[in-house]
């Protein structure tokens, strides 16, 4: 019993210590982010790796999620004779929730894991130490461009996911099932509010972008410099990022859409 409690206490202490270390790392990263903007080419390169190379999975997933929403939504709405509201259902579901959340989860799996693995391997092969020995700060030169590349990419990917999802809903609802096209688009246009729905969705995706990018670069930088350590860090990035996205989504939704919505 005592051993279990000791073990539990050690785990909690280690967790709190690591959280504090991550917070200090985040502060240091922000202070040394000037390079990422002064030499914006470094960040553009990371936007390509984190954002452009994630486009396929984001667009294809968005299309299928939108198509499923179209099918499920029509099935439910037509029972109440409201099938014209399909466009509203698809758009609000995507813009408010599914766009930022699913794009965030995919981004964590595709780009977050790659960022962690890359930084972790650079550490394991002493590339970060070598950089430090050349009087170049690896946080400024390696970590910050990857972090800001992720932060910038995430909202754009979420927007593309939502746009593709709406197109998928249109394909199934209008083209395949035959919902009235005018009603599909006009009701969507009436019901979706730029500030309440789209802006809040964008805010969510920006927050998720910060969370996933920070977790990815931190796990890579803090990885044990062995093959097993990098593997564990990559797994932790996906698991922690996914949980962080879902938890943050609940908090943000509670703050944004309660009372009057």
């Amino acid at each position: 019993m005592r051993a279990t409690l000791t073990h539990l206490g050690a785990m909690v202490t280690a967790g709190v210590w690591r959280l504090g270390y991550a917070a200090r790392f985040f502060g240091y990263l922000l202070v040394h982010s000037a390079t990422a903007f002064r030499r914006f080419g470094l960040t553009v390169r990371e936007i390509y790796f984190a954002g452009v190379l994630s486009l396929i999975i984001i667009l294809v997933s968005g299309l299928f999620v939108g198509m499923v929403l179209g099918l499920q939504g029509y099935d439910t709405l037509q029972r109440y004779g409201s099938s014209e509201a399909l466009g509203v259902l698809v758009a609000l579901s995507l813009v408010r929730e599914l766009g930022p959340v699913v794009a965030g989860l995919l981004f964590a799996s595709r780009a977050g894991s790659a960022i962690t693995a890359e930084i972790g391997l650079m550490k394991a092969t002493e590339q970060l130490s070598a950089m430090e020995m050349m009087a170049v700060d690896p946080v400024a030169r390696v970590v910050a461009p990857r972090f800001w590349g992720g932060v910038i990419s995430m909202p754009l990917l979420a927007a593309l996911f939502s746009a593709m999802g709406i197109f998928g809903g249109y394909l199934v609802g209008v083209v395949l099932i035959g919902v009235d096209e005018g009603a599909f688009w006009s009701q969507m246009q009436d019901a979706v509010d730029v500030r309440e729905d789209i802006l809040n969705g964008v805010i969510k995706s920006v927050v998720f972008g910060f969370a996933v990018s920070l977790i990815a670069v931190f796990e890579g930088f803090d990885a044990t410099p062995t093959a097993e350590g990098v593997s564990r860090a990559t797994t932790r990035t996906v698991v922690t990022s996914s949980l962080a996205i879902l938890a943050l989504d609940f908090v943000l939704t509670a703050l944004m859409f309660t009372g009057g919505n």
Partner: protein
Amino acid sequence: MADPAIAQIEDLTFAYGRQPVLHGIDLDIPRGKVVAVMGQSGCGKTTLLRVIAAALLPTRGRARVLGQVTSDLDRDGLYALRRRMGMLYQFGALFTDMTVFDNVAFQMREHTNLPEDAIRDLVLLKLEAVGLRGAAPLMPAELSGGMARRVALARAIALDPELILYDEPFTGLDPIALGVIARLVRQLNDALGATAVIVTHDVAETLPLVDYVYFMADGRVVAQGTPAEVRRSGVPFVEQFVSGAIDGPVPFHYPAQGYGADLGLAGRA
């Protein structure tokens, strides 16, 4: 030693947490010389190199490198100090997402305002010195182990450092590559007028190459001198290390209870 030391280690103790690694080390690295620090794996020689590189700070004692006490320096001071040093890592530590050319150009682009034409000329000069000018457009993954080590050497001397640190430069190389690296270490050091510290356990290649040797065991300096002096020193550890004898002060057997007891034979007639 008429010239002042480029690095002085005084009563240095270093510990990783509560695990002591170096105990009361005193040594000087004379300017313009090639100095080897030799010893078994785990004796603390790489840790000592990292202390000289100011990557680790002493737990006790003092490391004065290029006229600066490393523990007195802030981050900017450390970076200013490191711009006067070069370091060759055991496996090169080349940046895998850059070509050979960009690896060697890295420090020039980071620390100077030289135009790209001048950087190109300098990089080709450094690569020519290690015989790899033709490999400039290759990626590190396309290089053999020996070539990667030579590129890393070209990168280490990119800014003409005063002090060059080598961490196990001969490990894992075939005899030809090993001979090439050994010769380059000596030639480049003499051509640049630099000082070199080589951490290694490769006796055959190192002793003919260096001016002075420190032997370490268990975190302490146990012998020092010119290669001829240490060969004649009569220190049992050095003799075992140089000759590669299987048994001696470093025993063949890991400490254990009696073999008979392990086999269940204790007490039998």
